[in-house]
């Protein structure tokens, strides 16, 4: 049994006529100890998908139309509030994009980690454990740091504290929603290294949301590429990077600047990401796709398994 199985998840913002489909038929799995990357442009539904695992998207305005999110075999969408509070932190922990905004500005960082411990491991809610966690995430002199306020720490330190908070409850799955976007490159590398090291030491699974394909190569076992609320391609990371199959993935990879190249301009995908509620009929990528045919706009293509473990939402993936 997989740790996490998302099956045909459909979620709207709003109801009835005004409903906007934010997630449409998203399915993927994460096994215990596995790292899965969720890649896509801004607004494609990555974050909403990730927040749904803990049912953290406020309902209303969100509205789950169909599908299941099985965490340890139990459907998160059917859980009571008490059950949800147990799995939040207990099974799945989150690290967010802006470490500065994720920490409460008026509390010392030690107390914020203590809060996480009190909720899930109350017998361990003591200073020794907090110091051990801060050491684990590589904070120097943790004994004095626990008395610091968040604003006294650098961005990288704040993100380490956030990771310590997330780890305090010993989750099975760590969801990291663009954990390095707000940090500069050297700190990015440190945080990512920390995450993969912790993953090996603690044996937890990671769902990493990013739009940086470089990170995918370093971190991921498998990758799900999202476009306009749907999964466009799902594949083992190395295979996907070596040989992308979906035209969107290909276009995405082509727009990564090469270190050694003689191109004068960066190549970009023509057109814009369609806005939610204004999706084109049929394949949502068709208007920007180089291999699009008239029949692409007829009906939404299904996600098909083209090779073992490789799923593509495009019937013409062999073209070009």
């Amino acid at each position, binding site marked *: 049994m997989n740790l996490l199985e998302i099956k045909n998840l459909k979620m709207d913002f709003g109801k009835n006529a005004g409903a906007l489909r934010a997630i449409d038929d998203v399915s993927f799995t994460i096994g215990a100890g596995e790292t899965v990357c969720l890649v896509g442009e801004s607004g494609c539904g990555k974050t909403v998908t990730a927040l749904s695992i*803990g049912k953290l998207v406020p309902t209303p305005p969100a509205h789950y139309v169909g599908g299941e999110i099985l965490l340890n075999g139990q459907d998160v969408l059917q859980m009571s509030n008490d059950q949800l509070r147990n799995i939040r932190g207990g099974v799945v922990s*989150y690290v967010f994009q802006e470490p500065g905004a*994720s920490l409460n500005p*008026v509390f010392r960082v030690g107390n914020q980690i203590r809060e996480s411990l009190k909720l899930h491991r109350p017998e361990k809610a003591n200073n020794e454990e907090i110091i051990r966690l801060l050491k684990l995430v590589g904070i120097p002199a943790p004994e004095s740091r626990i008395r610091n306020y968040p604003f006294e720490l650098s961005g990288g330190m704040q993100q380490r504290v956030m990771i310590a908070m997330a780890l305090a409850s010993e989750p099975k799955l760590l969801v990291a929603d663009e954990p390095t976007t707000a940090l500069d490159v050297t700190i990015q590398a440190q945080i990512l290294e920390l995450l993969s090291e912790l993953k090996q030491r603690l044996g937890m699974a990671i769902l990493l949301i990013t739009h940086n394909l470089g990170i995918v190569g370093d971190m991921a076992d498998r990758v799900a590429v999202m476009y306009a609320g749907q999964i466009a391609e799902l594949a083992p990371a190395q295979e996907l990077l070596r040989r992308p199959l979906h035209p969107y993935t290909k276009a995405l990879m082509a727009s990564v600047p090469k270190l050694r190249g003689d191109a004068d301009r960066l190549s970009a995908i023509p057109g814009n990401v369609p806005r939610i509620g204004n999706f084109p009929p049929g394949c949502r990528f068709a208007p920007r796709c180089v291999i699009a045919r008239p029949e692409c706009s007829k009906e939404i293509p299904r996600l098909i398994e083209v090779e073992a473990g490789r799923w593509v939402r495009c019937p013409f993936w062999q073209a070009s």
Partner: protein
Amino acid sequence: MEPAPSISTIEAKALLSPWQLFWQRLKRRKIAMAGGGILIVLYLIALFAGFIAPYRFDDLNTDYSFHPPIWPKLQGFHFVVPRYEPGSGTFVYRLVPNDTKPLHFFVHGDNYKLFGFIPATIHLFGTGDPHHPVYLLGTDQFGRDVLSRLLYGSEISLSIGIIGILLSFTFGMIIGGISGYFSGWTDTIIMRLCELIMSIPALYLIISLRNTFPPSMSSTQVYAMIIIILSFIGWAGMARVIRGMTLSLREQQFVLAARSLGQSHLKIIVRHILPNTFSYVIVAATLSVPYYILGEVVLSFLGVGIQEPNASWGNMLTAAQNTEYLQNYPWLLAPGAAIFITVLAFNFLGDGLRDAADTKSL
């Protein structure tokens, strides 16, 4: 223009906690510090009222109605208190020559309870002789020492402000926090209720609320009733502001982070959202205390508050509403001066706190 701070001073500042920074900025505001100092003195005096007051608040001396203030005179190294006796005509007093008594400190006098529970008889000053009184602020129509009543009254008037604020702000914060956090119909119901309370003129609300309580009550009950009435009116304004702040705070990522850890809604409100409003609340509380003190004055002035013979600043002022009294016995206005000083001190302190809490003014 100030010289640019060097790197080392910037670092030194960053290491201070928010409260230390707040205190540093407050210290620079002299008027606010003076206001705070005055308040500390006033509250200390109220705490030791029984000890400082030479007489009890209900000590009648009908021979000495409307006696003007008696001031001790310095004779050599001692203070001596002159004696007056009733002269011809009503409330006219004549100095008795060469009849003085030395003013003693720490004299034995009437029984009182220090802090309300320690029995004591020692008073700060007095003549030790009931027939030779010392009335620093004169007496009222029943010959009761105005200073003593002022001191006993300060126990009530000053504590009503603090307890009232604690009560109404606690309710206002929790209700406002719930309203803003959950929004939707919870918010609608709570906010319409607030507006209902705020739309009724306060004075009518006070009087009609007073009528819901039995007409005769013990002084403790009256005291509790005044606090309940004033808090009942006061929470609505606080709840509205806190609700507005919560609406923006709940969108902050640290609230999502707390939820993602499995924290409950109520604890998120109390532990994460409300503490972020404290800098505003402290300022608002300081600036609101005068309304509670004045609210007690209004109730007692209308005769529905603290009842005679118990003293409060409000019911002492009731005696001063007669213009003839005011002309002839201006010392009856002493509680007015006390209210004036207290309210002003709270406003000075509150203004300073507001400036200090505003980080943009650094």
